[in-house]
């Protein structure tokens, strides 16, 4: 307990820890929020391409200004990322090359060019350049408060834009053609949304680096999408998940040596994705699997009941006494290949709908016969009295043809 208190105290007193945690939180918040639109517009990988494309911008901004002020470098990154996005659009619209290739080319080529510039600057011997390479892999520990302020400022501007044009961005993401018929300038709004993705990327570069930035764009939104079917809630949740992952990642990585902040944050946010995919109430895979299993059991149960009933009828029993006739398990198994008949019969017995008879024979109880009649009637839309009595036939798949 004391250790925890001490740790909490440390967050408020230790400059580095506080800065890193704040930075990671802002990054998660902004990228979660802005990334939601990218994911919904099926532009998840645009973030990946933009983050790589930003590198030459950072270095060129430094070469031009000689300054490493966070805002200067961010502006450079913004310009380069933007140019990259523009090129992707030009190539996909004007040639036969598809978006994935265009993104890949921009990603690798811009990044390669950034490396060339970076190594060139480094070998120019300028003492001032050290630290530029934190943009490659991100070094959250190197964050200082002025970086955090710059991140907060740029991110805040992005947030404000989303708040102001919420309705327009929503419409654009859902149905751009309709937005255009209403007179909204779709081209301009597109540019604005793309710029916002670049903004998110730019904010994260120093903290998590080029490679992992794409996860920060995609993961919080993908996790949030599983919990809600409302855009506003999804965006809020994504921001929350992002911030949560940022904080927890920063704190966990401070606990031990050799846990770099960027990857730790990414693992935190990815854990959230995994949890959401599995356990979210409606879209969760576990819930879906359980529902599916329940349905299958119900179907199997009905099928066994009906088959027992039909077998009885085919043996000439009157419908009322169908329950009196017991059947060889073998006949049932043959009638329903691929169905776990034995286990289903046990279930039916425990529910008092079927009973075992001598020599591995099974029969319906009166209650079971009733249920079978009802279930058949539901299918054939006849009243039970009109139920036609005729021999059953089976398809090769073991289905009963009525």
């Amino acid at each position, binding site marked *: 307990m004391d250790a925890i208190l001490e740790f909490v105290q440390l967050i408020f007193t230790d400059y580095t820890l506080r800065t890193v945690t704040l930075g990671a939180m802002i990054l998660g918040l902004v990228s979660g929020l802005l990334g939601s639109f990218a994911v*919904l517009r*099926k532009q998840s990988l645009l973030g990946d391409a933009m983050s790589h494309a930003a590198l030459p911008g950072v270095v060129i901004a430094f070469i031009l200004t000689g300054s490493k002020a966070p805002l200067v470098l961010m502006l450079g990154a913004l310009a380069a990322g933007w140019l990259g996005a523009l090129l992707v659009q030009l190539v*996909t*619209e004007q040639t036969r090359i*598809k978006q994935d290739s265009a993104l890949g080319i921009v990603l690798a080529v811009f990044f390669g060019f950034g490396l060339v510039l970076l190594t060139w600057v480094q070998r120019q011997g300028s003492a001032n350049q050290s630290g530029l390479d934190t943009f490659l892999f991100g070094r959250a520990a190197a964050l200082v408060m002025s970086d955090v302020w710059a991140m907060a400022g740029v991110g805040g501007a992005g947030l404000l834009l989303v708040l*102001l*044009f*919420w*309705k*327009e961005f*929503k*419409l654009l*993401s*859902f*149905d751009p*053609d*309709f*937005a*255009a*018929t*209403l*007179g*909204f300038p779709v081209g301009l709004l597109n540019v604005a949304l793309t710029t916002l993705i670049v903004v998110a990327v730019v904010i994260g570069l120093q903290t998590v680096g080029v490679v992992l930035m794409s996860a920060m764009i995609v993961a919080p939104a993908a996790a949030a*999408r599983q919990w*809600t*079917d*409302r*855009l506003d*809630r*999804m965006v809020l949740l994504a921001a929350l998940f992002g911030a949560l992952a940022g904080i927890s990642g920063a704190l966990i990585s401070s606990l031990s040596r050799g846990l770099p902040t960027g990857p730790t944050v990414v693992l935190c946010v990815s854990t959230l994705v995994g949890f959401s995919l599995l356990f979210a109430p409606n879209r969760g895979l576990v819930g879906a699997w359980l529902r599916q299993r329940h349905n299958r059991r119900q179907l199997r149960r009905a099928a066994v009941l009906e088959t027992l009933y039909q077998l009885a009828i085919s043996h000439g029993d009157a419908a009322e006494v169908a329950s009196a006739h017991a059947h060889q398990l073998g006949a049932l198994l043959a009638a329903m290949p691929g169905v776990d008949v034995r286990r289903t019969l046990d279930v039916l017995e425990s529910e008092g709908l079927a009973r075992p008879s001598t020599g591995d024979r099974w029969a319906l109880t009166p209650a079971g016969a009733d249920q079978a009649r009802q279930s058949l009637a539901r299918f054939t839309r006849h009243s039970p009295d009109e139920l036609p009595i005729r021999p059953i036939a089976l398809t090769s798949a073991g289905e009963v043809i009525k």
Partner: protein
Amino acid sequence: MPGQRNGSPPIHIEDLTVAYREEPVLWDVDLDVPEGTLMAIVGPNGAGKSTLIKTILGLIQPAAGQVRIYDRSYTEQRSLVAYVPQRGSVDWDFPTNALDVVMMGRYGHLGWLKRPGPTERKLALDALTKVGMQEYAGRQISQLSGGQQQRVFLARALVQDAQIYLMDEPFQGVDATTEKAIITVLRELRAAGRTVVVVHHDLETVPEYFDHVLLLNVRAIATGPVAEIFTPANLRRTYGGHMDMLLARDGELTPGGGSNGRHS
């Protein structure tokens, strides 16, 4: 900027030629849609039916000719026009519900920065009721059937409260209930003096549902009252002859949409 009606026809199209990558999709089309009519646009695949609708809506720029809405440009009159796009043109897994989609029909009236409020909510609920979807207002749109999704789109157009309704294949792949609901709404619109233009695939139902028809196959083959125009001879002129070739070129004829463009 409110649109204006005057003595001119709701939609007047003159010498309209539209090309996609310099390949003509519509050739020199003239068309007047009289006020208060229910008009079907009929023609084979690749005839340019969707293109015509999209050009009227300003989504596609013509190579020549012009479209007038009550004798003004679409930009001036857009508040008088409502649009029902093809159902497949959007991602129905988008996180939103039916009511929300319908309220989007009011966004144009709201203009920038303003958010939809109780008024828009009420209008949207009324529109959903009109198409028999009031119970599904809060339903996520991916959990609606195809027909229900189509009715949501129809309701969205209804809240636009327009004079002119342009619909791109609203009957495509819908159930009988939806078909009936849509045709009821269409007739109500006509009774209220609105003008409705519908891209339609099912030739059999044309005489029953519509009073006017445009037979289109890149060119306007014939247009006018169904009773006069919807004749076997005219249909042969529309569908016959070059149909195979048009079908073969279908993929090339998609304007505007790029790789995800749909066409009819």
